[in-house]
């Protein structure tokens, strides 16, 4: 068949653009239902305390209060992001007997308006007995530290508060280091950042007569939420319907089940009225889940020519009071090492450690920025010591097409080498690198530096709900409706899925209606949080599209008395090639199908899953098992300017050479790249959630400094194309939304070093640390 692409690969404007820019898009907070109540949550003021008594009597008497819930109103079932025999759920949906962090939910109120709800909170009297608390993760690990939870029974070391451990390795680490010409050990540490989704967390829950719970919630995928709500409320899945409104960003922060979701649902069940709970931005900063800071210790052995021979890691995740994704990130941290470079002898240990800080969660890149910052910084130090340049050492160790990773994954058409070469060439890396260090004082106070960082990132993996399935149905008029569980959280999911439908059916984008992200009416989808939308959901859509196309063609072949190979799809018609008047419209074909195919109105169905053929996800404990079917690779170059007097640094230019397979929509791919560059520069220079003893010091956009338009850097994108889309055939495109916050962070750190000779071992790269490094702080 001819493979001229009209939609895939085109810069098609996003489908949700007009409704968003004209302000007509409805978000969860915009939803008003008749009789709706307002919910608010009472939170713990203590980082660790026993709950002795909760007295709600005064609050109950307040006019306008319709329901108050505490843990006594729950069925006592715990939940968690990970819920497996090794890691059983550890979070009560409302605190029972004990609070473990400042902000933990103790009770919730539904009232006629927000003022009454807030007043009611102030009337609930909770008696606490404060308990010793621990906030520093390495203190928490010490034997005898205040116990947040008992240490994991399978971890035999004498350590406290261990939420989980991942161990992995191959080759022989001892022999590896023995073979090395040079070995170095470093320790890196990352800091606490929040996601910065602009739409606050919000839920509207409505328990309807007949016993159905309808939930509208700002999330990254409704199926996961449904599972957790059903579990904690004791309802069958079929009694819980979670569906979407528009979502104003997630970045990993809207995956888990949150208190406001559980409480809105339970309050609605108690009152029989819809309940809305909206988190204030301040609550999001103080009581919700931010990203996961890691401590990373690396020991690396190399040959004199830069060949990696052994690498050993010890990673500690600074988890909060519940396990959350803490045991996922220590698995992922391993994964984000293995993709980029070959290391023949390897040992990895990762610990997730409880503290009395608020629980943490996934954040765009989920461990990858932290890991790449550490690995790539150390690699530059090694290169410098050996007298080889940063490009050479990367090219020497970079994975090549067709390599099999230690877990059995195949990197297939890996374009890493080309990415490194292209990024370097485009930025004249070789010419610029090392220039600033020979600068003379007469040059003023600004030094410019250049640095490179590399990343490899998975494209979808197996975490519940594991797969994607879609339905495409033709309508009487020849248009189609796509049913997908995928949720567009601003990344453009619906747009690219429509492009695939449009391509498979040669149908204009306007003729595709999308019904998405509704657990009741749309098939299951992995959700917008494991970097699998374009690959996994995309392929599912492609399969469904193929089925529809084949049905159209088969009827057309019969009616037009032509052979299948002679038929072409164009302008909502099937033609006989070379005979344009010999055609049937899609509209005609639908009615013919109903007539002649026992009423089939032409429906296509498709499903897809990554690592097909593997029954289970890999082991979080041992990393054994396949992880992903497709890896994205990238090399990123940063150019920075550093003021050697104030220590202030800024990103001037970012160049991303990325192997994303092929872009389904180049504009959206570039949007992802630009977004990741600005997120990374916030990570690098500005953003930090400041905490003291479990409490947040800068709970506002004002004092938590996200970059503004004035801080963004010039971002240039180079496509390294390694795949192609062929109509009717599976494709292996690669993720573009997470990996590229990582290489650029590492590149920035290396560029700062290039500029001023200060090696930074901790993020963020504040003026203070840079001046300290320059020896200018008294």
């Amino acid at each position, binding site marked *: 068949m001819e493979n001229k692409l009209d939609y895939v690969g085109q810069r098609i404007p996003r489908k949700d653009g007009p409704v968003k820019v004209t302000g007509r898009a409805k978000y969860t907070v915009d939803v008003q239902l008749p009789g709706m109540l307002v919910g608010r949550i009472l*939170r*713990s*003021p203590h980082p660790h305390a026993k709950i002795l008594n909760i007295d709600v009597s005064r609050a109950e008497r307040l006019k306008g209060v319709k329901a108050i819930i505490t843990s006594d109103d729950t069925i006592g079932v715990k939940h968690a992001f990970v819920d497996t025999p090794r890691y059983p759920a550890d979070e009560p949906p409302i605190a029972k007997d004990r609070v473990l962090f*400042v*902000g933990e939910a103790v009770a919730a109120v539904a009232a006629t308006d*927000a*003022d009454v709800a*807030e007043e009611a*909170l*102030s009337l609930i009297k909770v008696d606490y007995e404060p308990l010793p608390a621990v906030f520093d993760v390495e203190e928490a690990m010490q034997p005898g530290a205040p116990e947040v939870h008992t240490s994991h029974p399978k971890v035999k070391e004498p350590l406290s508060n261990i939420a989980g451990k991942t161990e992995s390795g191959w080759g022989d680490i001892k022999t590896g280091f023995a073979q090395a010409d040079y070995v170095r050990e470093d320790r890196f540490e990352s800091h606490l950042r929040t996601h910065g989704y602009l739409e606050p967390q919000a839920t509207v829950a409505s328990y309807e007569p007949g016993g159905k719970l309808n939930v509208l919630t700002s999330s990254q995928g409704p199926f996961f939420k449904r599972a957790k709500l059903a579990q904690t409320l004791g309802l069958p899945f079929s009694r819980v319907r979670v569906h979407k409104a528009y979502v104003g960003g997630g970045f990993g922060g809207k995956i888990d089940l949150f208190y406001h979701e559980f409480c809105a649902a339970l309050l609605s069940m108690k009152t029989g009225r819809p309940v809305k709970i909206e988190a*204030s*931005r*301040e609550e999001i900063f*103080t*009581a919700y889940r931010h990203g996961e800071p890691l401590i990373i210790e690396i020991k690396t052995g190399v040959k004199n020519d830069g060949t990696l021979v052994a690498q050993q890691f010890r990673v500690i995740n600074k988890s909060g009071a519940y396990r959350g994704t803490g045991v996922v990130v220590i698995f992922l941290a391993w994964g984000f090492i293995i993709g980029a470079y070959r290391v023949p002898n390897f040992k990895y240990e990762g610990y997730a450690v409880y503290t009395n800080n608020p629980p943490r969660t996934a954040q765009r890149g989920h461990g990858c920025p932290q890991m790449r910052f550490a690995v790539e910084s150390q690699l530059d130090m090694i290169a410098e010591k050996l007298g080889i340049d940063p490009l050479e050492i990367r090219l020497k160790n970079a994975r090549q097409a067709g390599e099999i990773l230690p877990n059995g994954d195949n990197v297939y058409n890996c374009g890493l080498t080309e990415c490194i070469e292209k990024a370097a060439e485009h930025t004249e890396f070789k010419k610029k690198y090392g220039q600033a260090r020979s600068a003379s004082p007469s040059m003023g106070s600004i030094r410019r530096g250049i640095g490179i960082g590399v990343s490899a990132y998975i494209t979808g993996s197996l975490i519940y709900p594991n797969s994607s399935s879609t339905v495409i149905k033709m309508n009487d008029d020849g248009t189609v409706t796509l049913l997908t569980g995928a949720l567009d959280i601003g990344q453009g999911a619906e747009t690219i899925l429509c492009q695939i439908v449009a391509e498979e059916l040669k149908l204009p984008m306007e003729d595709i209606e999308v019904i998405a992200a509704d657990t009741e009416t749309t098939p299951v989808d992995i959700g917008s949080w494991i970097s699998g939308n374009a690959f996994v959901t995309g392929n599912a859509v492609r399969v469904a599209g193929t089925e529809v196309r084949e049905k159209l063609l088969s009827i057309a072949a019969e009616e037009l008395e032509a052979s299948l190979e002679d038929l072409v799809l164009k302008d909502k018609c099937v033609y006989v090639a070379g005979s344009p008047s010999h055609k049937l419209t899609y509209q005609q074909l639908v009615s013919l199908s109903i007539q002649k195919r026992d009423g089939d109105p032409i429906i296509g169905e498709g499903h897809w899953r990554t690592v097909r053929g593997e029954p289970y996800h890999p082991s979080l404990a041992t990393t054994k098992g396949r992880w992903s079917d497709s890896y994205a690779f990238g090399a990123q170059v940063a150019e920075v300017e550093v003021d050697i*007097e*104030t*220590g*202030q640094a800024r990103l001037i230019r970012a160049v991303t050479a990325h192997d994303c397979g092929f872009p389904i929509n180049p504009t959206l791919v570039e949007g992802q790249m630009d977004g990741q560059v600005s997120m990374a520069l916030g990570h690098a*220079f*500005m953003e*930090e959630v*400041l905490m*003291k003893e479990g*409490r*947040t*010091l*800068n*709970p*506002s*956009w*004002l*004092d938590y*400094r996200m*970059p*503004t338009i*004035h*801080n963004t850097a010039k971002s240039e994108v180079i496509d390294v194309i390694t795949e192609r889309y062929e109509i009717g055939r599976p494709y292996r495109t690669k993720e573009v939304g997470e990996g590229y916050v990582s290489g650029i962070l590492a590149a920035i750190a290396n560029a700062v070093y290039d500029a001023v000779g200060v090696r930074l071992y901790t993020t963020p790269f*504040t*003026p*203070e640390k840079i*001046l300290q490094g320059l020896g*200018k*702080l*008294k």
Partner: protein
Amino acid sequence: MRLPKFEHVQPSSREEASRLLQEHGSRARLVSGGTDLYPRMKYGLTRPDVLISLKGLPATPPTVDPNGDLHVDALMTLADLARSQTVLEKTPLLSEAALSVASNQIRHMGTLGGNLCQENRCPYYNQTHTFQFVEPCFKRNGDQCYLIPKGKKCWAVFSSDTAPALISLGASATILAPKERRQLPLENLYTGDPLKPLTISDGEVLTEIIIPCPLSLRGTAFMKFTLRGGMEYAALSVAVVLDMENDGVLCRAARITVGSVGAGPIRAGKGENAMAGQRLSKNLFQEVAQLVVSETHPFPHHGYSAAYLRACLEVETRRAFSLAAEQITRNPGDPG
């Protein structure tokens, strides 16, 4: 975060505002743009029952009096101030400081009076205290400071950007009380006490700022150090005015004011004295900058350590001197 209920009163004149303020006593607060007050009310840091609003009263555009002095209405928004041609010509330093505040939106609401009368800030204090930092700190009438727990004092900083500029310009403030109108050197508006930063009392309204504009050679500069470069209070700021002898080389008098690193704006008197009578030079700038640091004792605040603020203040002060020296011009209207 919700604004608590209050009564909103719209007086028809400043005099009436002052009278109403006194009438309602401690139950009432003045509000202009509300960009400083409303967030504090939402946090529950202040709970006035009555707000007397100056917002509806017209602001007189800046004028120059027969002495050549500039009069600026305190009710003027920072946006209008920043784009006033008269202000730009007479005191570019003030235009620059006004333009550095917050963001465009906030400058359109916020007024000069509100900027000068804003509350001191601290990350422990400026938030809701329903479950975070519930035990009151000094500034919430408690007996502790979270920032420096062993300390016996409050460490909240005063972060107005226009105050250091105006103090360096030698501005004075017109204060309207129910029975009197008085003139006050602007620096005397500040107590240096973070618990009660202003010297004026409840019934008083700041109505006007008068800035003397001597007919002499003058160079000015305003530096504000931030991480983000917009929508951000200063880590530190410094405003410098160098008045020159007619030769343009000898400094006749200098005024140096440092902002955001103390309980109020800090005049660097020793630095000023060391500059006066001297020939401008790089070395002099460096020496005086060090002196300024040694006499200011920056408060650590908002994640910046005192050590860093000292280092940064030295650099920014030196840069301010150089910039001011580069910009020495004759005051418009001076026959020369």
